[in-house]
């Protein structure tokens, strides 16, 4: 859509001090920001996509090993983390809602809750990594496999599974950390009262990013954890 389609009253425009000089009006600025975020998110899809491709390929070639490797993961923790992330997505969505409706207090509260949930996720992840370390399942440190060995499985391929597990979840955790930083930034400015119903694009864009990170996990959970769940008993 071009600038011509957009009409706002002068009052609306001047209300927003946040209008950058090169945009004609707030609506144009908001649309540009949202589109920019979405385009950024597709680059993220492709970034994780390389790993998903490797995963799908080796999973196809070594199904048994991947199932075996997967049975060594802690499904309970994975599931718990899934729930934590879904909750955080809800709270993030609500934070955006309160930004849109102009409730500073609720907005800050929900941003804080989101932050706390994100941190919880990372803590759980930390416990999981520690458990992998104890079980000697960390490939570059101490990899040994005494777990399930269904027919057709082989230790190198199981090791590969753990590599993919660590790279994928590690990259995901890295995105979570960036997300926490971003939330901190939003909390600070929300506290300063910067976001109004007219101008809250950062909260909205932050929300998009946060949900994206959630979606990545929504796929990681079944692909990594659930694969071998039925091997454990």
């Amino acid at each position, binding site marked *: 859509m071009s600038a*011509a389609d957009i009409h706002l009253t002068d009052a609306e425009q001047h209300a927003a001090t946040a209008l950058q*000089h090169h945009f004609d009006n707030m609506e144009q600025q908001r*649309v540009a920001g949202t589109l920019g975020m979405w385009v950024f998110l*597709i*680059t993220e899809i492709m970034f994780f996509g*390389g790993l998903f491709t490797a995963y799908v*390929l080796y999973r196809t070639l070594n199904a048994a090993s991947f199932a075996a490797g997967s049975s060594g993961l802690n499904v309970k923790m994975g599931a718990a983390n899934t729930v934590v992330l879904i909750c955080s997505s809800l709270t993030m969505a609500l934070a955006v809602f309160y930004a849109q409706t102009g409730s500073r207090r609720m907005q800050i509260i929900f941003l804080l809750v989101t932050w706390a949930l994100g941190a919880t996720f990372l803590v759980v992840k930390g416990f999981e990594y520690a458990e992998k370390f104890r079980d000697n399942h960390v490939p570059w440190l101490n990899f040994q496999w005494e777990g399930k060995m269904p027919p057709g499985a*082989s230790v190198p391929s199981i090791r*590969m599974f753990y590599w993919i597990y660590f790279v994928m979840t590690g990259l995901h955790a890295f995105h979570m950390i960036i997300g926490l930083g971003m939330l901190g930034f939003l909390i600070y400015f929300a506290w300063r009262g910067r976001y109004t119903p007219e101008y809250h694009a950062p909260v909205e864009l932050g929300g998009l990013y946060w949900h994206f990170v959630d979606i990545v996990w929504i796929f990681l959970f079944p692909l990594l954890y659930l694969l071998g769940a039925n091997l454990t008993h």
Partner: protein
Amino acid sequence: MSAADTPIDPLNPVMPDPSALPADSPEWRVKFPHVNYINAHYGIKSWLLTKDHKRIALLYLASVTVFFALGGAYAIAIRLELLTPPGDFVQAHTYNKLFTQHGIIMIFFFLIPSIPAVLGNFLVPLMIGAKDLAFPRINLLSWYIYIAGALFTIWALLNGGIDTGWTFYVPYSTSFSNTYVVVAGLGIFITGFSSILTGLNFIVTIHTMRAPGMTWFRLPLFIWSTYATSLIMVLGTPVIAITILLVALERLAHIGIFDPRLGGDPVLFQHMFWFYSHPAVYIMVLPSMGVVSEIVATFSRKNIFGYSFVAFSSLAIAIFGFLVWGHHMFTSSQSVYASMIFSFVSFAVAIPSAVKVFNWTATLYKGSISYDTPMLYALGFIGLFTMGGLTGLFLAALGMDVHLTDTYFIVAHFHYIMVGGALMGYMGGLHYWWPKITGRLYPEGWGRFSALVIFVGFNLTFFPLFLAGYMGMPRRYHAYAEEFQVLNVMSTAGASILGFGLLIPGIYFLWSMRYGKFAAPNPWPATGLEWRTLSPPPTENFASTPIVTWEAYEFRPIEEMEVIGPAPEQSSRPVPGLTTT
């Protein structure tokens, strides 16, 4: 004499210098006809912290030029080594570093950023009638990211370089090479983000910032091709990023995703690498195609024949370009059936290129053609790209590629497209927009002369390599068999002519920045919005948001093409060539 009342002579649209100021006098900037983006602020800080897309374009221009000269120096060293069959000029491992670094620098640090980041940055907002790109800060950031990546790479070069070939094939790059693979890889990884952010910025800008009346089908074709290029940057670059990350992890921690000893598959690397790197070749050539469309229209004063076909062919190339990567892997032990798919689509993707070539040619029909330097480059582009593209068909033909892959035929193919095509387009574009960018004219005679020298030198350098390739001379060879020598001597001779030819514009561009004649707002004259503001444009491009009521490439007498100049108070003296403000 006041310039304002001098009528513009359409024969010689160059205005008489209004100021009659010695160009090197200390106040020349202050007294320059108007306040523009160059003289609006002073000092190094005003450049390094600028958010003006035009200044950022100049930052890129300076940096890619440095890298081009560096890559060219490597090329000269390569050609010197190949003058004689035995490896006598440099040692084998040095030679391997030469072509690797030549390839990496030319591709990642010169050609990919060249047209998009220099001309694209400068022109996209101007052409669509916007004040700036959608995200000026991100634009500046992407230049810094580029520089950071470049510094890493230079660090790798200074420490002893890298010898994997620009393709980084595993397991050589992960387990065998003991050169600075990770550092150089990191450089490319980082630079990738620069390219992603630039592409993102363009996409958003083109979607949301067009001036009133600037509908999609009134956009200049350069915008279409930049848009298509940006799609590739956004969709492809992340994949090379993750691939390089995996190579680095494999090297540092032996993760084994590509290593056969650990159960991995080296061919997977090739899939992931080419998933980006084939589309990337279209990142390199599409912007040039856009430039050529602009130039051909302007210098034949004709609307581009089949505008919408040319526009959509850019998109088609960008999209189908993602389906052909396996044509680099026909002999890699890839499945023969997959090879067939990739070969088939490779032929399909040649069709939109063919459409473009024919439409450019048809545009000339019944035109009013002049032979200024940009036009010479554009016509050179069409011829050389056609040859480069058609030899691409040899390679896309499965049984033929088996004989030709990894020979000098490949080297000749891609230099025809990347040097004969993309580089010529870039040179043409630089000449074409030089008056707009600097407000000065380059010397036309030297321009034409060097264009011819470059054309001749280029063909002499790379044509013999087709023959050497068909005879079987393998690429990346430090020493080669006797029977290839004649051809290689010709090539080296050509390279020296080519290098000389390239040096000339290097010199006169620098010269013209200071001593060139002042340029009118619309010296050629051309139709795009960028020609309706001053040369050089003021900081926010137009005094008021332009309202577009004309179609793309609608040529009219120059008097009818009003200039949307700066606000009167910005202008310190009457601006020549301004019919209206």
